[in-house]
């Protein structure tokens, strides 16, 4: 463990963290702008060019708002719940590769913070811990709508995590590795979305459900639950939930790109640029979904997860295993 290694690790951590944290305002701006145009409005346009600084202004506003804690709330859990949400989202971002190995300053530098040999499991672990942020936030507020939101979220995220995990297993079978960098490298010639289209669709649906985004945003369904689990949160605590939601979107998009959409590979342009392009398109897709689909009813959501996605994912896994065995 030499000094160069430490500096390299530190720089990579700063880049990824900075990218995620600075990317969130940009995504929020993009979402509001795109949603606006899709709904025949113009979206934010007053602050900065094209309204680019609108989210920064909103962030500043949140920062100066009063930090309210409900009188009957569980103070400790109320304080740590938003932190759990953000920490798990950022932890998951550490294993996503955004480019192939590069040679810089006489060192071979891997373009991801760390490549643990069980990266996919690490990711699933981090997302499964992320549930706590939402559930505890709902419980600690000690108020009915947040509690209902938290309960919904816990059931929903557990259900979809299962199908999400199973949809990734065929990829592991095909590459024989749990490392995201190696999975990415295996797609130099053929993106896994082609042989594993079914798994890709399942992952896509589960990813939206895992991040609690429309049309699966039942945990914060404003027509029924005010704002769901974060109703009682204000100021920076609310901002942290907001941040974690968008950071999670980036993470699941990053995983989708790495596992199905050819990771950082693409013609002409360098790897990280392609990764960024794909990430932006994926996030645009998220917003597009939100503008298009009405929210599911709760029983429809559970039915879809357990009766459609999970069986199809298992079948897909079995078929993949048989095909791989037959072909040797």
């Amino acid at each position, binding site marked *: 463990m030499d000094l160069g290694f430490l500096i390299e690790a530190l720089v990579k951590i700063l880049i990824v963290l900075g990218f995620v944290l600075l990317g969130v305002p940009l995504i929020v701006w993009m979402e509001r702008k795109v949603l606006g145009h899709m709904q025949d409005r113009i979206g934010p346009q007053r602050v900065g060019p094209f309204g680019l600084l609108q989210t920064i202004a909103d962030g500043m506003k949140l920062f100066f708002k009063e930090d309210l804690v409900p009188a009957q709330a569980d103070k400790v859990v109320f304080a740590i719940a938003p932190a759990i949400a953000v920490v798990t989202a950022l932890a998951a971002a550490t294993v996503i590769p955004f480019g192939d190995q590069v040679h810089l300053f006489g060192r071979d530098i891997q373009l991801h913070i760390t490549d643990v040999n*069980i990266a996919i*499991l690490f990711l699933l*672990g981090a997302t499964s*811990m992320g549930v*706590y942020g939402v559930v*505890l936030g709902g419980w600690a507020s000690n108020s009915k709508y947040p*509690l209902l939101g938290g309960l919904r979220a*816990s*059931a929903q995220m557990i259900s979809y*995590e299962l199908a999400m995990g199973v949809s990734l297993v065929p990829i592991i079978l095909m590459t024989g590795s749990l490392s995201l960098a190696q999975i990415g490298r295996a797609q130099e010639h053929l993106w896994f979305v082609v042989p594993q289209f079914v798994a890709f669709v399942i992952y896509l649906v589960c990813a939206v459900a895992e991040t609690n985004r429309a049309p699966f945003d039942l945990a914060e369904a404003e027509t029924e639950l005010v704002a769901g689990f974060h109703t009682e949160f204000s100021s920076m605590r609310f901002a942290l939930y907001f941040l974690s939601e968008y950071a999670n979107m980036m993470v699941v998009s990053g995983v989708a790109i790495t596992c199905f959409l050819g990771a950082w590979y693409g013609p002409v342009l360098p790897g990280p640029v392609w990764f960024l392009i794909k990430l932006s398109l994926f996030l645009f897709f998220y917003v597009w979904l939100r503008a298009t689909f009405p929210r599911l009813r709760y029983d429809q959501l559970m039915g879809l997860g357990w009766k459609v996605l999970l069986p199809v994912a298992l079948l897909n896994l079995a078929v993949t295993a048989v095909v791989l065995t037959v072909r040797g």
Partner: protein
Amino acid sequence: MVEGFLFAMFAGVAVGCALGVVFHRNPVHCALLLVGVLLSLAGIFVMLHAQFVAALQVIVYAGAIMVLFLFVVMLLNIKGESPLLSPGAAKGFGFLFALLVCVELFWTVVQPGGQEGVMPEAAPLAHDFGSPAALGKLLYTTWLYPFEITSILLLVAVVGAVVLAKRKFF
């Protein structure tokens, strides 16, 4: 040095959280502290080169089972404990069982090997020790029958749970 420090940290957090699980009165806090115990055990598993087991510990126990625990506790909204035994009896039984466990542990660890204990010298590890591949190979060769029997047992439990929950079928 680093290893000792990490072990002390994980073990300390595990023991502290475990004590909290026992002594805390709010069931949700107890469940959360139990998550803390499970996570620090996962840390110790990683230090023992058992990354796969650590990942499963986090995903299955801390991430799924404990969330369901919390779900039930939150759904029933239990405020404070409702004691099954009188406090005195509960304490008596508690101390009795704690003592039994202590004696048992002491017996297994110290008795057969005398003063030195039975902990063997650490054997050199295979390079893929604890990796999913090595573990899978063992599960599907040497331990195939216990593994399959366990899965059938779990399947039976799942079917049983569904039958119990949906009595209307009959």
